[in-house]
């Protein structure tokens, strides 16, 4: 994870488009300016970045289901719970399940686990739209390749 660049997802470990599920692996950095402020002397991942991590994991699933023809933007967070802290260097897994594939929107539920223990959970609603410009589309494709999105899903876009 590169927190200051909002690169929350390290690698897609599993994605099942038929079952509408995804699992991603992430490792918190040992050092980050974010930890210097949150909190001095007691570095933990901010809860809002746990939610962002869930949202990004689910976003890959939504966009993969659309063969990357459209972009998923975070629109709503519901029932978010941060059950325990995440500290520098900690390894986490994020699971997300798409609950509904709407027209112009998608609804997912997601969870963060570490060592099998549930750390955080949230419901996420995305607004699904055409890419607003080619630069975003290109940039997203580069990240998609880095996190391990299968090339055939990008080829259709």
């Amino acid at each position, binding site marked *: 994870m590169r927190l200051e660049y909002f690169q929350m997802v390290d690698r897609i470990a599993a994605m099942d488009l038929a079952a509408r599920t995804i699992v991603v692996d992430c490792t918190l950095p040992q050092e980050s300016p974010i930890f210097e402020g949150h909190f001095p002397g007691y570095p933990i991942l901010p809860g809002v970045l746990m939610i962002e991590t869930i949202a990004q994991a689910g976003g890959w699933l939504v966009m993969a289901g659309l063969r990357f023809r459209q972009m998923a933007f975070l*629109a*709503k967070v519901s029932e978010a719970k941060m059950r325990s802290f995440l500290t520098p260097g900690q390894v986490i897994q994020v699971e997300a399940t798409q609950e*509904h594939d*709407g*027209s*112009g929107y998608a*609804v997912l539920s997601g969870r963060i686990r570490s060592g099998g223990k549930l750390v955080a959970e949230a419901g996420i*609603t995305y*607004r699904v739209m055409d890419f607003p410009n080619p630069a975003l589309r290109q940039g997203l494709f580069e990240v998609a390749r880095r996190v391990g999105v299968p090339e055939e899903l990008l080829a259709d876009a």
Partner: protein
Amino acid sequence: MSDSATYEKVADIISEICGIDRATITPQSHAINDLGIDSLDFLDVAFAIDKAFGIKMPLEQWTQEVNQGGVYGEEYFVLEGLARNIDKLVAAKG
């Protein structure tokens, strides 16, 4: 489900999700112009309607049709029109 029953269900959903007094909602209410439902709340309403009726409302297509002037917004966003289109979608899925 009859047109009327569909409308009643839609009105109940809007009232609950958007916190609008049920008595102020009528079949002639425009979801945006009269009830003031914003685009984010409308996503919640759409999700609840999709779930309740087991359909996928083609909101992108409807919006495109309205924006292109093919149909008036009333066809999809006044509640009696919305209910009528929901019934069509339910019938189409068999």
